């Protein structure tokens, strides 16, 4: 019996030839990331332990991303604590304001390689599985333990195979694929599992698109999303080769198939990520705010498709558009390509790279009774501010079309002309 890519990475990290789902192993960690909201708790635990030097300063990454630049004296202190910790230990992989972005995007651009075992003190660390790594989110005390020991226990997960057939039609994106899958499996349909995206459809998707899918594996309870590396992965990560891949005879706990050719734009309605419908069946949803950004959909490709739809058009007077590129690198490239100008000319606002309003902390928090169409990943009660607000999750294409119309809109009509 062969092994899945997840099993191979966990076997390698634990010094075993094979591992099996359900087995407990100790894995050596290749990369450990903290950010400005979970990092300070990790430092608090380290202080309590009385010893705070990381096991390997090359393998730790500290990124300011949730509330950047600092929006209060409390946040400023959190940033200061991380800055001073990085300085104390000579941690070079510290990302200061202006040299950062949403943590998962920074990890994708600069750190993660296929075959790595990656942990981050953020649930969306599963994003990085798109690069053929095993990447998962952990808590702050767990991270303190990783900092001190360089290892962590793992229960080897079962793998759900998400098999993608054919290719997407114009106006439909990988966000629609993952929403469709979560809608089918439910918010706990992948509990403790690895979600492996396979099939001919994966090859047609860019690395940006793959990161979006893996990002939301956690929304069905997944331990990671993961994709076998191919030429695109190798080019993106700059490695020579990426040998760890699922065997043809690997065992899967479950298989779900999605036909990309017949998929239409999807939306997750309040207040659960599995409350998914096609946009065409969602009814009349007035949008007070549209947000394009986050670790799910703040990448260059996302800004490109949104800018194409918004070029020469205006944001509806009845709504407001907030665009937040996921990293400084994307911000600059979007500026070079004129996308930022397009958003501004359309009547939108463009903010500096950070998590923005996704989790209700900064830049676009919702009031009572307001509705936001968002390209982010969670629509829980109170997620983006008021507990009396509503969040609908959709693709950047759908968000851009919605910004023009002021109500939830199918983007496919903007694809011609």
């Amino acid at each position, binding site marked *: 019996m062969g092994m899945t890519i997840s099993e191979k990475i966990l076997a390698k990290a634990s010094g075993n030839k094979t591992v099996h789902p359900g087995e*407990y192993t100790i894995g050596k960690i290749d990369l450990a990331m903290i950010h400005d*909201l*979970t990092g*300070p*708790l990790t430092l*608090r*635990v380290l202080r*309590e*332990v*009385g*010893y705070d*030097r990381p096991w390997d300063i090359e393998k730790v990454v500290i990124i300011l991303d*949730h*509330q950047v630049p600092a929006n*209060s004296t*409390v*946040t400023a202190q*959190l940033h200061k604590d991380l800055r001073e910790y990085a300085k104390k230990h000579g941690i070079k992989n510290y990302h200061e304001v202006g040299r950062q972005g949403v943590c998962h995007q920074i990890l994708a651009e600069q750190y993660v390689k296929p075959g790595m075992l990656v942990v981050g*003190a*953020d*649930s969306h*660390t599963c994003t990085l599985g798109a690069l053929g790594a095993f990447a998962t*989110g*952990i*808590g*702050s*005390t*767990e991270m*303190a*333990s990783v900092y*001190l020991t360089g290892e962590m*226990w793992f229960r080897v997960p079962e793998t759900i195979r998400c098999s993608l057939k054919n290719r997407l039609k114009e106006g439909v994106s990988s966000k629609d694929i993952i929403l469709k899958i979560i809608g089918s499996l439910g*918010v*706990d349909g992948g*509990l*403790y599992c690895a979600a492996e995206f396979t099939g001919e459809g994966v090859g047609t998707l860019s690395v940006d698109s793959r990161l979006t899918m893996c990002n939301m594996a*956690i929304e069905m*309870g997944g*331990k990671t999303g993961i994709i076998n590396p191919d030429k695109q992965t190798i080019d993106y990560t700059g490695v020579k080769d990426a040998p760890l891949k699922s065997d043809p005879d690997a065992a899967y706990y479950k298989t779900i198939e999605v036909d990309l050719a017949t998929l239409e734009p999807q939306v997750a309605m309040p207040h*659960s990520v599995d409350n998914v419908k096609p946009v065409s069946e969602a009814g009349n949803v007035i949008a007070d705010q549209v947000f394009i950004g986050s670790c799910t959909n703040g990448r260059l490709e996302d800004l490109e498709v949104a800018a194409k739809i918004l070029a020469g058009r205006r944001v509806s007077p009845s709504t407001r558009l907030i665009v937040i590129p996921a990293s400084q690198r994307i911000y600059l490239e979007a500026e070079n390509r004129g996308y930022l100008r397009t958003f501004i000319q359309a009547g939108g606002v463009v903010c500096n790279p950070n998590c923005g309003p996704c*989790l*209700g*902390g900064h830049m676009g*928090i919702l009031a009572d009774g307001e509705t936001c169409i968002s390209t982010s990943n*969670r629509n*829980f*009660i*109170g*997620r983006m*501010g008021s*507990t009396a607000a509503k969040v609908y999750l959709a693709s950047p294409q759908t968000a851009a079309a919605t910004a023009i119309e002021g109500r939830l809109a199918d983007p496919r009509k903007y694809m011609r002309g």
Partner: protein
Amino acid sequence: MKEIKGRVWLFGNDVDTDVILPGKYLVLTDPKDLAKHALEGLVPGFADRIKQGDIIIAGKNFGCGSSREHAPLALKHAGVGAIVAKSFSRIFFRNAINIGLPVVMSKDARERVSEGETITIDLEGGALVKGNGERIATEGYPDFLLKMLMDGGLLQNLKNKFSKVERK
């Protein structure tokens, strides 16, 4: 670890980390401050009404969403003695054990206990015990996890291991 005994608070499925501890409070790091906002998104005033040692009994997928350890910290320091659920989100489950908050899986508990009744949790025996002595089975832990929980969590383990390391 002392006996876990408390009044039951019943919850449904998929209680997420944003209702347990809304994102706007993630800038807080003192558990006492976090505790004031525990479950604020779902039960306003929960922190004032809970008594030390009360037990949450919920449906499936408790703690889904974020990796924020602030969520189990807020519950623990508000006074929650343990959480029993049909299933837990993976990160929340680990976080709770790491900070010494008992989390117990039971398929039947949600249907067999009532709001406000007092129950006892027998962690090592793998059961919830009702006032009339009726026992409801809970799922076991791997040995190393049970030991970690009985020791008071991962933090305590780290203290034992690293407190003697020479400080730099």
